[in-house]
């Protein structure tokens, strides 16, 4: 079945309008805001700091602890009940796994680097926006990183591979939704989640589209980080 046009008029590999800003929470060690379309994510880093409870400490290196949360008014339908849900816990876990390969926490033995991701407004691609913001916040906090991480969701609708799916596109009949994150310089995948049925060739094609999209997102990350540290 052929997929013809995107309802917002974007090209198949085109991303929604994006915005990135670093240093948005003064008291934090590092912070960033990333907006893609109408999804707005804040990420804030505190650390290295003391790790409670002590049995979770790692004597060889620092521990990364991510917490993803949606503000109660950020969902498009009813209010989101505050507090962790199974979904938010899962997203916290994959966020951590998406970021860890980029970090070098060997100088921070027995400590924790806390990353808090808060969604102010959601319109699909929330976990990806959170990861993209978190990577900037970690760099802003001075955490040693071997590479930057950017994240995007791509999908297959009908016979086309699309980048940055909207909610409507995610719900399309037989749509396949693929969340990805890439180490930019190495070009390697750190997050890969998929929903649906897909041939291998299509998946590889989708990953190539995602990689290019992440490189594009990374340009904004670089700009936002350098902006903060430039002297006016």
């Amino acid at each position, binding site marked *: 079945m052929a997929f013809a046009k995107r309802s917002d008029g974007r090209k198949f590999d085109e991303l929604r309008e994006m915005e990135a800003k670093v240093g948005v929470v003064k008291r934090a060690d590092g912070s960033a805001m990333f907006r893609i379309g109408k999804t707005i994510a804040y990420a804030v880093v505190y650390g290295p700091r003391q790790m409670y409870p002590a049995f979770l400490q790692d004597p060889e290196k620092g521990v990364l602890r991510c917490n993803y949360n949606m503000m109660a008014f950020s969902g498009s339908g009813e209010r989101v009940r505050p507090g962790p849900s199974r979904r938010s816990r899962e997203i916290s876990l994959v966020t951590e796994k998406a970021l860890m390969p980029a970090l070098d926490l060997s100088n921070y033995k027995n400590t924790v680097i806390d990353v808090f991701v808060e969604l102010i407004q959601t319109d699909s691609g929330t976990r990806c926006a959170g990861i993209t913001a978190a990577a900037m916040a970690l760099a802003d906090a*001075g955490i040693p990183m071997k*590479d930057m991480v950017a994240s995007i969701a791509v999908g297959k609708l009908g016979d086309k591979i699309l980048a940055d799916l909207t909610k409507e596109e995610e719900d399309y009949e037989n749509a396949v939704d693929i969340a990805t994150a890439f180490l930019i310089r190495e070009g390697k995948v750190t997050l890969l989640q998929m929903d649906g049925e897909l041939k291998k060739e299509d998946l590889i094609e989708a990953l190539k589209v995602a990689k290019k999209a992440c490189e594009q997102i990374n340009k904004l990350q670089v700009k936002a980080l350098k902006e903060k540290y*430039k002297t006016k």
Partner: protein
Amino acid sequence: MGELKVQDKEIVIPGEVLAVGMDFLPANGTFREEDKIIASEMGLVNVNGRLIKLIPLTGRYVPKKGDTVIGKVVDIGLNGWRVDIRWAYEANLGLKEASSDFIDSRRTSLTDYYDYGDVIMAYVVFTTGSKIIDLSMRGPGLRKLIGGRIIEITPSKVPRVIGKQGSMITMIKEKTDCKILVGQNGRVWISGAEPKKEIIATKAIRKIDEESTADGLTDVIKEFLEKECK
């Protein structure tokens, strides 16, 4: 053969390629991967011959042996004090290291020396780099700091605040008539006769923290101080 991909004093982000080729050597804040030298943190590029290093622009304090630090007493035990030095873990100040005098804990209370909330200037004798940090106050200039105020700045900016051979900090001290001590952990103690002058010194030091990447910073601060201290 080698090619520098960035300029001296350029701001770079983690993962950015700084140089290609085996000619260059990675130093602080950079690492080599195959034939490339790559930045491992947010920093300012510093090229010294073949050595490429980064001056960090941000990041928390990590204790190192020999650092002079300004700490706050947060707990008192039987054998010494626990001190907050802006690290994830509290540092230890033992009885033997707390003073050039001999402290007999059976005769005097530890609080007679340093009480909860007291601010001290000490140095790091030993650290494992994580949970154990041992301090000592036996040495010139190491003492309890009374009065004045404490401000906190980015630890990696401390060298800028001090300046070449102390030139920057001396200028601020002279123009604001304040006593100023800077800890490697990014804590600064300022004590002046007039609170207004303390506030000006505070603003000058925060300005250095925020604008550290600017050219001609010394002149900028000089102008600022002259304007404020009329």
